[in-house]
């Protein structure tokens, strides 16, 4: 039954009225013709009866000691006045009453329920819990022995009237109608509530007029809670707690970017706690996921310092999860893929940033940038990255192992970095295999590339002869290429990509669509990781090739290009190229969703395509 009650705008609107049009319509629907007069009389009487019944029903509400008038109450009033009751609206919550734009029609939303779906639903709602009584001593000798319940916390009590109101409004907005849940940590596993809380934290952080002072610490702790806590809601796969964690992580990094001065002491502490979570195999995967995204949010250095060393140990666990194809494991496995994707994203950024730091270092060295990088640059320029990898890599060096261009005497550059970039790359590749490659793509060496880059000949591009076994059918590890522009970028070549943030805007539509949605990329990585065992094993006979340009005269500017090709659905290679140019403001880049942090994957420009096509590009059977 759709009740159609219109509200007439009358000169005096003391109460809702049923217009005579509605009455006539109702009558017509049952096949009765009503004259205007009769309809008017009926309408008025109906109004009156409705009001009377409503007034009568309110006493049932009062005696049931409720604040909300329920349909039951109304029906009781009707029943006691010998009127037929309204059936089918026994819900405890109010049904939404909606207007229809066209025409003054109002109706109760009464959605159809698919009974079959309901019957076959897997998440069977539990029966109502048994009514029970619990007792607790609330106040001992008239004083609250516990924390005074419901009263505002002491910190709040000192606030002025206005602020107190503001506080109440906010707590209500976040915590909903229950004003007594003062601490998130105390009770809440409600995703909506947590989400609202995070949004509030965000607006607090972003408010330039607010000096947060020591409160940042508590903010950070609640954000950390959202990131790491294995919420009860996580059990249900329908609850999107991933977004919550992502958002919280984002917020964390935001706090660190904007209020770094206030939380500097916390940084290490947070790293430790994240590390603890990560290294604790008992924790659920969603916590691990939180830890990874948290690390990721804290910057690539955090990833390098914490995630990277733990990866081998952690990998085994994850591998076990992912390799279990049993049905019961399906949910866990899905979670595992989530974690996998998160690690991938983090690691990839690590690589990129590391590479970037190289360029920065190179560029900054001559530009007189301060810091440890200067010395490193000097060193690097002295030994143009031809030293062998300092650490024995796990994979057996085959064939072109010698091509391992050690852009990385890394350990010598920065003391805290245990692994050089290529070594790291290799190791990561051993874990992720081609899925890492997908994200970086390869750079086909040699070929007509230099010529294609009209204005900036990639001088540093040097393909050693031993790199020659470029058999088309051999799967190649994507290659990391560093190119150095001697000339500044003032020439505005179309192929020379601008700074990463603007990259997304310049890539063609296809790649834009793919890169702009993190979910799609994650799912892609997931799909590729569905056979991680194979890809890792395959990766063992492939060697990373990293090429570094020779230093040239003039102020060198490096740009890394990671190019590659990926097999499309129609077996047409899709090319990827990621290029970096040193962007000084990168450090202050505001954290964004993954989509923005993802490398721009796809066709960069025509010349690149030409040289990627020309020689051995990497075909990835996806």
């Amino acid at each position, binding site marked *: 039954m759709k009740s159609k009650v219109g509200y007439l705008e009358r000169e*005096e609107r*003391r*109460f809702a009225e049923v217009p005579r049009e509605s009455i006539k319509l109702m009558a017509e629907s049952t096949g009765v013709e009503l004259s205007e007069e009769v309809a008017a009389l009926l309408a*008025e*009487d109906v109004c*009156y*009866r409705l*009001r*009377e019944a409503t*007034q*009568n029903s309110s*006493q*049932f509400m*009062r*005696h*049931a*000691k*409720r*604040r*909300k008038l*329920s349909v*039951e109450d109304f029906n*009781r*009033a009707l029943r*006691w*006045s*010998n*009127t037929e009751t309204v059936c089918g609206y026994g819900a*405890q919550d109010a049904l939404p009453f909606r207007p229809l734009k066209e025409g003054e029609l109002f109706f109760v939303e009464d959605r159809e329920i698919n009974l079959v779906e309901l019957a076959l639903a897997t998440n069977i709602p539990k029966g*109502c*819990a*048994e*009514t*029970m*009584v*619990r*007792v*607790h*001593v*609330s*106040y*001992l*000798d*008239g*004083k*609250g022995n516990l924390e*005074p*319940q*419901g*009263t505002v916390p002491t910190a709040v009590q000192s606030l002025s009237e206005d602020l107190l109101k503001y506080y109440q409004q906010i707590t209500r907005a976040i915590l909903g*109608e*229950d004003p*007594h849940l003062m601490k998130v940590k105390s009770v809440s596993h409600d995703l909506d509530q947590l989400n609202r809380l995070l949004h509030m934290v965000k607006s607090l952080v972003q408010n330039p007029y607010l000096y947060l002072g020591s409160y940042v610490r508590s903010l950070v702790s609640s954000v950390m809670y959202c990131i790491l806590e294995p919420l009860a809601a996580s059990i249900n796969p329908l609850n999107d707690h991933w977004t919550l964690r992502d958002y919280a992580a984002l917020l964390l990094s935001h706090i660190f970017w904007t209020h770094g001065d206030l939380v500097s002491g916390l940084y290490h502490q947070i790293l430790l706690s994240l590390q603890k979570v990560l290294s604790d195999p008992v924790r659920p995967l969603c916590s691990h996921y939180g830890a990874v995204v948290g690390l990721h949010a804290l910057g690539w250095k955090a990833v390098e310092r914490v995630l990277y060393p733990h990866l081998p140990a952690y990998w085994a666990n994850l591998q076990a999860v992912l390799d279990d194809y049993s049905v019961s494991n399906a949910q866990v496995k899905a979670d595992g893929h989530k974690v996998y994707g998160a690690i991938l994203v983090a690691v990839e950024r690590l690589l990129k940033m590391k590479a970037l730091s190289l360029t920065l270092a190179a560029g900054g060295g001559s530009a007189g940038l301060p810091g440890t990088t200067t010395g490193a640059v000097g060193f690097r320029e002295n030994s143009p990255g031809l030293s062998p990898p300092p650490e024995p890599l796990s994979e057996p060096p085959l064939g072109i192992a010698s091509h391992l261009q050690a852009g990385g005497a890394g350990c010598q550059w920065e003391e805290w970095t245990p692994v050089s970039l290529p070594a790291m790359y290799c190791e990561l590749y051993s874990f992720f295999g081609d899925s890492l490659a997908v994200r970086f793509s390869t750079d086909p060496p040699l070929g007509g590339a230099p010529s294609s880059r009209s204005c900036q000949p990639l001088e540093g591009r040097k393909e050693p002869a031993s790199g020659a076994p470029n058999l088309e059918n051999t799967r190649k590890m994507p290659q990391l290429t560093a190119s150095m522009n001697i000339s500044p970028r003032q020439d505005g070549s179309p192929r020379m990509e601008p700074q990463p943030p603007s990259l997304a805007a310049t890539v063609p539509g296809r790649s834009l669509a793919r890169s702009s949605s993190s979910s799609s990329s994650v799912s892609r990585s997931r799909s590729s990781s569905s056979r991680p065992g194979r890809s890792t094993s395959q990766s063992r006979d492939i060697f990373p090739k990293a090429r570094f340009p020779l230093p040239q005269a003039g102020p060198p500017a490096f740009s890394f290009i990671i190019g590659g090709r990926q097999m499309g659905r129609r077996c047409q290679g899709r090319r990827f190229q990621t290029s970096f140019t040193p962007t000084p403001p990168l450090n202050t880049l505001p954290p964004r969703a993954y989509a923005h942090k993802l490398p721009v994957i796809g066709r960069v420009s025509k010349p690149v395509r030409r040289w990627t096509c020309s020689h051995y590009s990497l075909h990835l059977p996806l």
Partner: protein
Amino acid sequence: MAAVQDGQMELDAEKETKPEILSDGTSNLSGNTASGTLSSSPLTAAPAGGAPKMEDQQTLIAVLQFLKRNKLTDSVEILRREAGLGEDQEDSQATDGSGGGKGDVDGGDANSLLSRVSITSAAAPQSMCDSPLMFMLSAAGADDQPDVSVVLSAYSQQGDPSLYQVYYSGLKNFIESVLDCHRAELSQLFYPLFVHMYLELVYNNHENEAKAFFEKFSGDQECYYQDDLRVLCGLTKKEHLKGNEVLLDFRTSRFVLRISRDSYQLLKRHLQERHNNQIWNIIQEHLYIDIFDGMPRSKSQIDSMSGSLAGEGKREVNKAKVFHGLLKEPEIEVPLDDEDDEAENEEGKPKKKKTKKDSLGSKSKKQDPNAPQQNRIPLPELKDSDKLDKIMYMKESTKRIRLGPENLPSICFYTFLNAYQGLTAVDFTDDSSLLAGGFADSTVRVWSVTPKKLRKVKSAADLNMIDKESDDVLERIMDEKTASESKILYGHSGPVYGVSFSPDRNYLLSSSEDGTVRLWSLLTFTCLVGYKGHNYPVWDTQFSPFGYYFVSGGHDRVARLWATDHYQPLRIFAGHLADVTCTRFHPNSNYVATGSTDRTIRLWDVLNGNCVRIFTGHKGPIHSLAFSPNGKFLASGSTDGRVLLWDIGHGLMIGELKGHTDTIYSLKFSRDGEILASGSMDNTVRLWNSMKAFDEVETDDFTATTGHIHLPDNSQELLLGTYHSKSTPVTHLHFTRRNLLLAAGAYNSQ
């Protein structure tokens, strides 16, 4: 009056035992209508509680006539015997009556009356309590009002509808221009006049004028009449008038105003000068002006007493003597609890007993001058188990904490979880061992609050097997297999609005929307009796402090007194103009207090069924009542969030406690009466210094005689503490025997 009461009960009994004539509920009216018209002019009618004998007799005779007509000869006999009326007397009166019938009502012609009444009721089929209301009202007899259509027809006089506004504003101008001291008093006239004039317009089909009238003057009314005005503004048609409860309330009772003689003279002179007959007529016919000599009252004095549906109580109503003292405690031998005492010789014991008892309550030793006679109403004899319980009580009370402003009670909160907004009533046993909850899903649940589980008695076959001579026979009859923490009692077919444990913890009462009160055994956990009498939802019920009797009140506007072994009520307390929402026994069991939606509290004498006190002053329906342990005071809480304190002996309001922001559903005095605890919908428990409130009141002779009180606004001083719960409205409060405060309510997650 007592005789009348009995007569009514007979009538009621007829109604229940002979359901086939129940449909004649309306026809009862005819007889009583006759009686109504028989009675003397309404203006000279006596107030409730002190009706002259003549009228009583006429009512009786009318009832007799009705019974005769319906061939209920047995009842006629009984009634006549009870009332001590001679047959000839009746006959002569009857002829007088029919002769004296005037207007459109012919007392003799029952048939025409019947048909008219049935038309009336047929025209208003939606009326929730059409027939029983009329029945009760007419049966009540205390109000000398005839039936509805007669009342309404009083409006039939035609005045120029357009002049109503002029009349009203003329009076308004006059009242605003008089001296300040009179203005407040005369302002009381506004509301009743406004309502009556509006209804008159509506009755005479001047819909537009009525609306205009309402628009213009409704804003002038006191804010506490808003609820009624909202109902009123919905009435715009003559047809609506029939069967509207609120309207009936207003019509069937005369609005009582208390005005000093000076002010009244002023008003009278003004109206006569202006020849403002319209207003004068209304005052004459529908208002009762209680004139007193002396100083006019101030605005605040008036405001504190007004607000009820029918104005203030008349002064005479509260003059009757109320025996509010406590009954003498029965002599019980208190065995000494300590081992060393037991070791003493036999003679030593009685002495010790005496001393102990004296220390406990020297008051109970001497007869309280205000106490009723011990046998004023018959009370059940104490059983051995009751004596044991008394002993327990005394032992406990020696360990009682003396409460005071410096020494507040601890509060234990019993939270009902997963009640889904369904918890409607809660009660604790006096010894705080059991907890009962009434629920909207028609169930009653009983929990054991102590580690002792609830057990049923064994089945009859099993009971035969046990050794009845053994010492632990009471233990042996229990079936261990049924032990559980809680039991659910099924039987009602509507939400349970009231629950009450018997003092001996063997029974539980529950009242429900289905119109019944049920008595449950807590030994077998089954329903023993369903008391049917209220034909409408029963909002509250309570056991007498001595057991056996219980009282119930409901939507049918009456409270009934029952005994557990009678299926019919012993007394019907009729007089409230709207639902009886809560009922409480006086600690001495001789009186019953009822709170109502008509915003008044009435105190009824159990012995004769008379209304002995009417307390007005609440601005909203009353939902909780509590007697102080010494029986002298009464506290009441209402939807307006205020607690009012009343002195029963003097019939005065003695305190107003403001602080709650929502309906007060529970009130309780501490065991010694020092602290009053109030629990409300606003999720708080508040403690008040009742001792101070009672001490500070000045009850000099002048106040006592005039009833004009000056309330100090000292709520904040009296408030000892506010205690919040976590989203849990406080449904019930209870002080344990050691003065620990127990609160109960259902957690409300929304």
